[in-house]
């Protein structure tokens, strides 16, 4: 016999559902400039509060303030703005191309452009990203060809991956962009292994792991943190918290932990949270974390606080699980507009030049798209050879695959 009431299961729920008024009152957002910038050799213990705050640079008036400001020139910021605008325009065109049946699938970045675009600019040649399917900004900000991206999406004759991979599962060793896998979180521990290899060879290169809020629940996340901590691997471990894992709100993966960044503390890994819609803040935190890795001070965990404005993918309709206007209520705003306003406040930009640039970028994206389409789209006649299907399973084709290729008549 017990005096206790019967037990009951706690299942977290988002604050609101479709039809409700969006509510982000539970998200605590400090003022820009408020969070201190520690030395890079700081102990994880000494900056516990950074795992529960949000590093922000751009204030409401579009000014860059506080200790994390002042790292980027006007030209660098204009370049960053251009990268984000390019990613957004590319997303819009590819989303449309999917609706037109030119490909089977697409995943856009709407609202998260700053995270990958700004982070990329803190990296050096030879560093390696282990991205998820929502970091194409790493490619765009790294100068990868839009035509090659579109060819991959179309699975056409110029697809660098020969039609073997689902759209957006890019790969470019040359651009420090590890092959994307459909299996969530697997790349997180691989990033740690790559970083360990760099350390084993006394190299100077670092690795960057990427994961979403939902995928932090996978075992690989845990393994990555253990290994990164044990071997003090030169790796930056990014968590992109866009609040949603398809239809599941971030509280399901986060549980009772205050933040995702807080997970790092138990592993003795310095953990920071950053305003993921603030290009300057993402870049400044990236620089800090990369410097730690480069100076052999070990790993850093960074939670990028952002919002997934678009649908999860072209196969998803968010109206089924969240209010339609939720993204408009998101308190950290839009990364493109915020950087644009900052540049205008700096006197380096104007509405006219922005509109003009937007048009130029659209032209560039459309011409890249057209060039890619000249090599075929998914259901066109132009596609990778069926022979390519049998290549590359092994370094040399074994006899049983040669027999199967022959049987396939290709």
């Amino acid at each position: 016999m017990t005096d206790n009431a019967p037990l009951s299961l706690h299942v977290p729920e988002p604050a609101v559902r479709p039809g409700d008024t969006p509510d982000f009152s539970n998200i605590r957002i400090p003022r820009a400039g408020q969070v201190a910038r520690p030395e890079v050799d700081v102990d994880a213990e000494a900056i516990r509060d950074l795992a529960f705050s949000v590093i922000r640079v751009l204030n409401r008036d579009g000014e860059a303030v506080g200790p994390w400001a002042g790292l980027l020139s006007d030209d660098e910021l204009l370049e960053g703005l251009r990268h984000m605008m390019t990613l957004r325009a590319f997303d819009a065109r590819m989303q449309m191309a999917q609706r037109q049946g030119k490909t089977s699938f697409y995943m856009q970045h709407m609202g998260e452009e700053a995270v990958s675009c700004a982070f990329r600019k803190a990296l050096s040649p030879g560093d390696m990203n282990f991205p998820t399917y929502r970091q194409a900004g790493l490619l765009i900000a790294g100068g990868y060809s839009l035509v090659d991206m579109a060819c991959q999406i179309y699975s056409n004759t110029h697809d660098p991956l020969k039609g073997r991979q689902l759209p957006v599962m890019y790969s470019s060793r040359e651009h420090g962009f590890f092959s994307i896998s459909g299996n969530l979180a697997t790349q997180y521990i691989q990033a740690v292994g790559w970083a360990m290899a760099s350390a084993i060879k006394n190299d100077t290169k670092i690795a960057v792991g990427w994961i979403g809020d939902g995928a932090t629940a996978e075992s690989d996340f845990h393994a990555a943190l253990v290994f990164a901590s044990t071997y003090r691997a030169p790796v930056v471990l990014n968590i992109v918290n866009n609040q949603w894992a398809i239809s599941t709100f971030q509280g399901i993966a986060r549980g009772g932990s205050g933040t995702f960044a807080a997970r790092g503390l138990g592993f003795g890994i310095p953990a920071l949270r950053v305003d993921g819609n603030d290009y300057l803040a993402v870049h400044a935190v990236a620089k800090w974390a990369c410097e730690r890795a480069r100076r052999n001070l070990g790993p850093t965990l960074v939670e990028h606080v952002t919002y997934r404005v678009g649908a999860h993918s072209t196969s998803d309709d968010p109206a089924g699980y969240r209010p339609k206007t939720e993204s408009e209520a998101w308190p950290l705003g839009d990364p493109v507009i915020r950087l644009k306003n900052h540049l205008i406040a700096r006197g380096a930009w104007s509405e006219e030049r922005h509109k003009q640039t937007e048009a130029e970028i659209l032209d560039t994206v459309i011409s890249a798209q057209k060039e890619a389409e000249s090599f075929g789209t998914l259901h066109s006649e132009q596609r990778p050879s069926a022979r390519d299907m049998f290549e590359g399973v092994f370094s040399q084709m074994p006899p049983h695959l040669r027999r199967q290729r022959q049987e396939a008549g290709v």
Partner: protein
Amino acid sequence: MPRRTMIEAIREAMDVMMSRDDDVVVFGEDVGYFGGVFRASQGLQAKYGKSRCFDTPISELGIVGAAVGMAAYGLKPCVEIQFADYMYPAYDQIVSEAARLRYRSNGQFTCPVVVRMPTGGGIFGGQTHSQSPEALFTHVCGIKTVVPSNPSDAKGLLIAAIEDPDPVIFLEPKRLYNGPFDGHHDRPVTPWSKHDLGEVAEGYYTVPLGRAAIRRQGEAVTILTYGTMVHVAESAAAETGIDAEIIDLRTLLPLDLDTIEASVKKTGRCVIVHEATLTSGFGAELCALVQTRCFYHLEAPIARVAGWDTPYPHAQEWDYFPGPARVSRALAETLEA
């Protein structure tokens, strides 16, 4: 030629490759300072340093996942899963990542990783120290699966596996670590020092992947087997006096089909023997291939002797393990058919 146990041969293979190639690294649980629970990496850390041979946290997915990342960088990790029974947490990294990396990146990234795992039963290992999960690897496109049956092969195959540009699952029958085992658990164990295949050449040599070895020439029936069961099959042939041709497959994938086909076409009969459970085991693939390739030469149904379709038990070890009596019975039935 010096005689070595299989453990010593495996250690020599890693030693040879670590000294030949700075990119070879060895790690796993208890692998570093202690030298492995089976002593396979004993002395390697002292000789090559902690950055080449080290202990890991107890995380199979971490071990294989980190190895995949290292391989993407350009290293050649040779990692250990303490028992094949514990590879399941790493299965996603093996199947979804290691096996597919070359294919999905169109060769931009490759995965020259070797995953060593002690496998097989006959040691009172119970459910989680006895399994033979090879069929779970041979079904995966993009990985090679190797099972040696003696020290000489173990060393040559492991060197070949480490040099191979593709991921290799290297299953080591732990029952054979210290000596050959023919299934007669009631007799004293012979050490490898008393067996010809315990002769292991010094230094570097390879046994190529994808090539079977004929352990016994014969005319009456072909036995297709690998690992511990090679010795069980030899014992059964000797005891029955049946002139069996025993083929030690050594590499399950890619498979040496030419050797198999030539033998079965010669004998007209085929018995497949493995420790792993029967249903959907690797024997089913062998059976299908032999049936397809040798149909008009077969004079009897192809027989399979395998572990029962149960988890590996403890007390009933010798009722479970397909010993020489069961193999002998299958040979006799196949000849009478």
